[in-house]
């Protein structure tokens, strides 16, 4: 199992580095249109062919990987911070604080994640600049994806609050802020790290769902979600099976994340 995890970690690193170096590795800019080569098949010049606007699919895949792989962790960081803030405060203060925070959390969790995401994304402007659409999409993922993590953080904080070392620190006159920052936060780190890692593949998949439905990143900027929109033209997939490459890459990356996460969970 460890060998598989190692391979998964290496594969993730390769895709991540390739995405980071998209500007260097990509043969063309993601928006450049080779009008004379529109809908071309894979060749030495265009490794994955071109789309109907003549844009190099391989270059778009590299740039798309950069957008998805850099911004999903940012969204995961935002959601983990929110979970730490809401769940941590609820667990630390307890009583009415905990009840109200958990009611708020239940409210978010009572709606299926995709329903909430699609509804909120659809009511926000869709015809925005590509960079704005990237910010809207990933901020939304971060802002709406904290609820499940907050529950875990709350229960972790609650058990820490009642632990002996915290009680002793309280008895020694340690103030609430210092108690939380110095004594509790370091012990919550493993929980927060786990929630951060678990959120990344979830957000990558959510962005892909939004992209396929046309609610993700705006053209011409590519992301895995917007690249998968090409699959909506079913009739062309049989003739151009290389259109499925972004789907296979997404499948591979999310699987690698799942393998690394399960190995981390087993080793804890």
């Amino acid at each position, binding site marked *: 199992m460890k060998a598989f995890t190692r391979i998964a970690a290496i594969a993730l690193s390769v895709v991540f580095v390739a995405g980071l170096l998209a500007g260097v590795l990509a043969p063309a800019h993601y928006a450049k249109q080779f009008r004379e080569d529109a809908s071309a098949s894979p060749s030495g010049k265009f490794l994955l062919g071109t789309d109907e606007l003549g844009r190099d699919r391989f270059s778009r895949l590299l740039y798309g990987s950069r957008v998805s792989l850099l911004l999903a962790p940012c969204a995961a960081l935002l959601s983990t911070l929110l979970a730490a803030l809401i769940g941590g405060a609820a667990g630390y203060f307890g009583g009415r604080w905990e009840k109200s925070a958990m*009611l708020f959390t*239940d*409210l978010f969790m*009572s*709606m*299926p*994640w*995709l*329903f909430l995401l*699609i*509804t*909120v994304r*659809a*009511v*926000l*402007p869709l015809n925005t600049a590509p960079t704005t659409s990237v910010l809207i999409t990933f901020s939304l993922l971060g802002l709406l994806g904290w609820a499940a993590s907050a529950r875990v953080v709350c229960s972790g904080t609650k058990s820490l609050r009642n632990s002996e070392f915290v009680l002793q620190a309280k008895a020694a006159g340690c103030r609430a802020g210092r108690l939380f920052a110095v004594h509790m936060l370091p012990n919550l780190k493993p929980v927060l790290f786990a929630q951060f890692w678990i959120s990344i*593949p979830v957000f990558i*998949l959510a962005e*892909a*769902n939004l992209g*396929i*439905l046309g609610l993700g990143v705006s053209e011409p900027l590519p992301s895995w*979600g917007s690249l*998968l929109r090409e*699959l*909506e033209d*079913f009739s062309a*997939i049989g003739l151009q099976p290389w259109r499925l490459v972004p*789907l296979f890459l*997404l*499948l591979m990356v*999310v*699987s690698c994340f*799942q393998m690394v996460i399960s190995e981390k969970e087993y080793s804890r």
Partner: protein
Amino acid sequence: MASGSAENSRGRSAARRFLQRLVVFFITLLLAGLLGATLVRFAPGFGLSTEQLDTRLTPESVQALRDAHAGERNLALFYARFLGGLFTGNLGTSSSFKRPITELLRERLPVTLGAIGWGMVLGWLLASSFAASAWLFRSRTYDLFTTVLSGIFLCLPTAALAILFLLMRAPGRFAIALVVFPNVFRYVRNLLATSGELPHIITARAKGLGPSRVLLWHVLPPAAPQLFALLGVSVSMALGAAIPIEAIAGIPGIGQLAWQAALGRDLPLLVNLTLIVTAVTLLANWAGELFAQSLRSHAA
């Protein structure tokens, strides 16, 4: 006598818990509806339509189009009116479909419930048969096969799964089964694996009881409460998956309706759908937990 009073107090506390749960259920439902209404009301461009850009319209006609949304501008008033209508069975009129919402829901709710029902049954059948066979065979190769198979479906976006189903000319609603399957399979497999290590199971096997008998009589009954709780959670999974699947596969259910309502910023319809989706999710979770609790107390 003592056991009778203990039973009475248990009954009272169960009734109190039920009432508390009911209150929380209604508060959550009201807040969810309000949240949905607030989001749409304060979304940029609310109340504007492309019709207003028609240069042939006179200023009076443009004003009339704006006034059509006047009743929805005051959020508190809109929500209070909506709740008042809800008690009399009037759910309002959809602004994008120009039809009574009750009519739309009557047409589409059975379609989605059917799709979710099929998806749940197939997903659970697949998941439980794979998990049970993995437990019975105890083969590393078979375990790897089931893990990889469920992993593939777990790592595919729901919308892409719907597209693949259309590509294979398979009914789109069955895609819901493949969303439910991997999540249920992984949980059930882990649950069976944990139960298999319990001392009474090891003793039963050591005494020579057949694996199927051990599974049916000794592993499944103690795991039943957790399975019922998972059943409730899987309804929420199926409902969430129904939205992109119905939108892509063109299934005229409430998933597609939610998608069209969101794009059309149809406030009355969206608030109703938010309430329905939240109610179904909460009720499913609640029913699952109630079954689990009653099984636990029965076993105790």
